[in-house]
């Protein structure tokens, strides 16, 4: 679908202007969302290097679509959609060789989120991996991304009813794992 883009607002709009806007938007959005999106994609892909590429793809595309987005909130939703769509296994293809290895952080449990040890976290992450793709997406968007049902529905392009049902089935499947932790 190609949207009509109103470039002119009653005056000349030199080719350069929109690119500058897009550049500024890119920098601002990168600072605000890049890390979070890499984490989101890593939960879906289980491969941090691939996740970084996916998110970089999304930012590049967002930059290109800035003319019709023109709004930080729309851009954020666009980025999230692009990242989630691109994070389905089998869809990604390496365009750029990874020249770096992401360094894992030291293994101290985060004090802010309670003393949940590494082993317990791993159990949850592994259980999440075994879920069907949709359920995993809904649970990660809800419980990591703190998104509302409406936002999740919009990101995934499904109905809110479907979001509820994926969430409840996913949690039912994870229940025995989570019960052992508390």
């Amino acid at each position, binding site marked *: *679908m*190609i949207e009509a883009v109103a470039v002119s607002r009653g005056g000349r*709009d*030199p*080719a350069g202007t929109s*690119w500058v806007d897009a*550049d500024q938007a*890119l*920098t601002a959005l*990168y600072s605000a969302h*890049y*890390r979070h999106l*890499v984490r989101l994609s890593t939960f879906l892909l289980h491969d*941090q290097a691939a996740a*970084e590429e996916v*998110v970089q793809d999304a*930012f590049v*595309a967002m*930059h*290109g*679509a800035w*003319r019709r987005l023109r709004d930080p909130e729309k851009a954020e939703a666009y980025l999230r959609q692009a990242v*989630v*769509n691109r994070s*389905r296994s089998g*869809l990604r293809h390496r365009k750029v060789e990874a020249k*770096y290895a*992401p*360094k*894992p952080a030291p*293994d101290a449990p985060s004090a802010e*989120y*309670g003393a*949940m040890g590494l082993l*317990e*976290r791993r159990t*949850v*992450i592994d259980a999440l991996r*075994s879920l*069907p*793709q949709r359920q995993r997406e809904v649970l*990660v968007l*809800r*419980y*990591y991304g*703190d*998104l*509302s049902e409406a936002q999740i529905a919009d990101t995934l392009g499904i*109905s809110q*009813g479907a979001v509820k*049902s994926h969430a*409840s*089935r996913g949690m*039912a*499947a*994870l229940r*025995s794992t989570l*019960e052992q*932790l*508390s």
Partner: protein
Amino acid sequence: MNTPYDDPHGELLSRALKAEAETIRPAGDGLSRIRDRVERRRGRVRWLMPVASLGTAAALTGGAFGAYNAFSGDDQALRTGRLAHTGPAQHSSAAPSATQPTTPSASTTAPSTARSTDPATAVATRKGEAAAPATPVWPFHSAAYVAMWQQAYADSGSQPWHLDAGATATAFVDSLNLPAQDLGVATTTPVSNGTVDVRVTTASTADGTPRVFAIVRLTRWGAGANAPWEVIGVTAPGLSIDSPAAAAAVASPVTVRYTLDGGVEEDVYTSAWDSGGRLASGHATVGGGAQQATLSFGRARAAAGYVVVADVQSASGTATLTRLAVTPVRLGTSATPTNPQGKQYPPYFVAVQDQRVGLFYSKLGGFGRWLTDPQPGGGVSSPQLTADDRWVYFLRGGGTGVQNLMRVSINGGAEEQVVTDADTITSFAVGGDHGQFLAYVVTKDGSQALVWRNADTGQGGTYQQHSVPPEFGRLAWSADGQHLTAQVRTGTAWELRTYAVATMSSLDSELTTRPDRSAPSYDAHGNLYYVQAIDATHWELLQYDGSRERHVSTITLPEQASPEQAAVDITPDAYAAMVSTPNGHVYRVNDGVAHLLPTDATEASW
């Protein structure tokens, strides 16, 4: 933005994800890589744009932008996710399937409810309107649940997928946590009035085409347009469960015998489930032919259960479910409980704090979330969870002397008044595997009466002793609903009296000759637990098995308290107890140790 977690485990999942997220640190060169690629694209566009069109709006729209889109084919695909075909049809969760029979099931008639023997009592009775399927497997296991969903659906359209046989079938397979991706439905075939067979597919790893791996049989539970679908069994060509037979009564350890046709190296997963979840699981790599597996489990929370046999094949490192069979069974609860996985207590308890009912974590007493809203002038007390963890019943004070029996779903929402014709309820107990037994104390004609009811059968009664009217304190149901033990006071001392519910006569027991016992609670085997003060700062937790009293544990209190208003809640397998003192201390007692939980909550129960 923060979303209220409507699943008690949601917070745990969130904590795990957020803690894990902190260990994911992106490399620092993301922005420069993005900029590099943007510049390269920009270069292409500029190269394409004729110099003469620079500055012309129309040309920019059709030219530069159009050209840009041609190069960024990924853009649209990224947004719509349509880089690859979507595979088999996803199960719908919306409108009822067109293949559902429209005539009400012939097997469901609505037996009229046996009204209470006490016409003054108008407890919201769950009507036995739907003749239950003989072998319910999933998701409902009693008419009470069907009615609860139907009410929620009528009120707010909640979970409409229950009206779609295909969606219910795939959701059931999802719930088994097996390696089955991209579940779909091949066909839905009516079998008889109100029963259908749904052929469920999963994407084969080899070529991505959907393959049927099971035939899920469902039947409608209830009459009318919003009677939900219930799975009653699953079969698969080439895999049969030879024993246990459908609806057979089994007890742990269960030997599951099954036959696989063909197959060289099959990964077979067997498991036993009840309505509370998986009880036990096993795995073996087998060839074709007759096989068996043994499953051992501890407490079963409900009589209705099912056994699952799943045949999984691995191709190029990915596991795919190829055959699935499920047989309903009746689980015995009379066996001595063993818990081979290691003894456990329930992960959370309900309790009162700040005049509200809250959910707390059993391990450390940490706060989970609120279940009721604050209401001015009305405090809450005595929260009790039903054994299936679906409802919390509690008392809410309203004004002078007013106290109503209420309940709220574990998922939150509006409180419902359970007893509508009495405003002076001073104590109550809810029991049975899904809260079907209810007993409460009302004041009638100046003295107290004990009212009880079985919501499933509609039977009930009232016990009132006019000659020397006793005062009733805490109540406790035995697991089978046959006995009710009440804390009773006729003089100055509280004592425990056990009533046989069928006759509402009190049992002669040694217990009544021993005063100063309070806070009764039953385990799954008819043993009664309660506390007695040793001195002002020491209580003893005791057990009575019908003939003998035994010491269980000593609880040392940080300050003086009397056990008359204490509450004790024992787990069905008697592994652990939750003890609450009237001055706000909560103890989790297990392995002979009373752990004082650092919480401000009171009146804790599991």
